[in-house]
């Protein structure tokens, strides 16, 4: 145990880090289990939202208690991950759509629901 760290903080951070990694693992399992490319895109987003969220909250609590002052620059990681993930996913899905279109499969709904 790290000196100067109360037990409850150690337990809490351990639970949060474990929860975050389990969620990320589940996302990865989803990536493996789903059959179509478009379904697969969804699974890893668990890791980039709640998964990373739990780990970062654990980090905030741990270092805030250890240094006896609020440490929360982890928020920046959350912001940048949230802002940049859509770009990657959008490019991936668009590339897949383009490939499917070339192969003669058109996924675009012909009649937009309105």
């Amino acid at each position: 145990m790290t000196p100067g760290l109360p037990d409850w903080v150690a337990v809490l951070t351990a639970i949060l880090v474990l929860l975050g990694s389990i969620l990320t693992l589940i996302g990865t399992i989803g990536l493996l289990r789903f059959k179509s490319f478009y379904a697969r895109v969804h699974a890893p987003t668990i890791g980039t939202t709640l998964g990373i969220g739990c780990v970062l909250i654990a980090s905030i609590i741990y270092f805030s208690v250890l240094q006896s002052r609020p440490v929360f620059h982890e928020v920046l990681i959350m912001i940048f991950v949230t802002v940049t993930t859509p770009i990657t996913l959008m490019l991936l899905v668009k590339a897949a759509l383009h490939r499917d279109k070339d192969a003669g499969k058109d996924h675009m709904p012909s009649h937009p629901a309105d």
Partner: protein
Amino acid sequence: MTALVPHPVLSVFLLGLWLLLNQSLSPGHVLLGGVIAVAGGLAISTLEMPRTRVRKPFAIVRLAFVVLLDIVRSNIAVTRIILAPTPPAKSGFVTIPLELRDHYALATLACIITSTPGTVWVSFDSAKGLLLIHVLDLIDETTWVQLIKTRYERALMEIFE
């Protein structure tokens, strides 16, 4: 003032970013962060990005809470789908007609939709105002259209337009 700070939102964000990174509110860092904020705003203005004004801070906070709750909820839903013995019944594309036109509002909507597991932003046809998303657990198309429109689009229009 507008000449020096052409993008106030960006400049405030840059200053906040600098202070957060350095974990300090000392006058030196505030000054340095201020210089970076002004320089960053001026640099972006050479790209001739459309300007934006963000209104109603209360609406922003409310939307943030709604989104946070939805992220947690859809995380649980997708986790359940992954761990279920049978794959999801049906996943597919949904077209949503949007009234939203502000670039920044659309970018925010893209972040929201992609951050909630189970939905991914695919493309937006700005001429027709049609948004295409992919939904993992697609049961009813019209519920998704209603959900995006009432839950997010209305709030974003209130904030950005």
